[in-house]
């Protein structure tokens, strides 16, 4: 099954810029379905990015992050061809991870 994680990492000079898009409903727990029942909260809690054996960014998310959440950040270092790993875990204990390459 395809990963839920899309990543675009581009190295330019001494900086790598990372953008990620993750497929996830990010249900806030405030929305009702067509029958009038509350859709329970279902959202990513932690997203972690690793490069060269160390964590380069961690996102702690609540339900106020939009559906199919997007993130952009940057770090010093990284070069074309390096691996960059993304992993996430949500409030139901589900998780996914993906290793992309820096362009």
């Amino acid at each position, binding site marked *: 099954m395809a990963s839920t994680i899309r990543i675009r990492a581009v190295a330019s000079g001494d*900086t790598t810029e990372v953008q990620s898009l993750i497929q996830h409903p*990010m249900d*806030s727990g*405030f*929305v*009702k379905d067509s029958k009038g029942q509350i859709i329970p909260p279902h959202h990513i*809690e*932690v*997203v*972690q990015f*690793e490069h060269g*054996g*160390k*964590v*380069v*960014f*961690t*996102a*702690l*998310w*609540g*339900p*106020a*992050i*939009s*559906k199919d*959440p*997007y*993130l*952009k*950040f*940057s*770090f*010093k*270092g990284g070069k074309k061809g390096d691996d960059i790993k993304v*992993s*996430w*875990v949500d*409030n139901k*204990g589900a*998780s996914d*991870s993906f290793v992309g390459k820096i362009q």
Partner: protein
Amino acid sequence: MNERPDAPDRARRLVLKGAVAGGLAGLALGSFPFPAFADADAKDWPADAFKQKTEADALKALYGKSAEASDKVSLDAPEIAENGAVVPISVTSTLPGVTGIAVLVLENPNTLAAAYKIPAGSNAMVASRLKMAKTSKVVAVVESGGKLFSATKEVKVTVGGCGG
């Protein structure tokens, strides 16, 4: 499938792991050591901070302190959101030694939208997309040198992002 310990157990375990004093035990960001090679871990999630209803309470739960306004924090957010479900924002800062960024939406049911941990070597910049229930101030908070600095912007929302 890992069992998730319920909150009181979790807090106790964090305390037992020897979290640094000077912030709420185990929930103070930037000071909690955790192995770098493990995947995203739900234990890092500051449940208490995400329940708070005011800026002051959210920042206290997250960092154990409050923020002062600073023009060295830049928050880019639209004046009028095209749709409250997907509001693109970005935060940057020229402050030195930034270890964390938090984003709060004051009129949302819970104030804290996101918190980011920025290790040494990573830049003071983050962009994401938020849900906003209604017109609200959005506050970007940057942790630098152990202190908190913030920038605020009001974003008008005509179509709320929380349904209904």
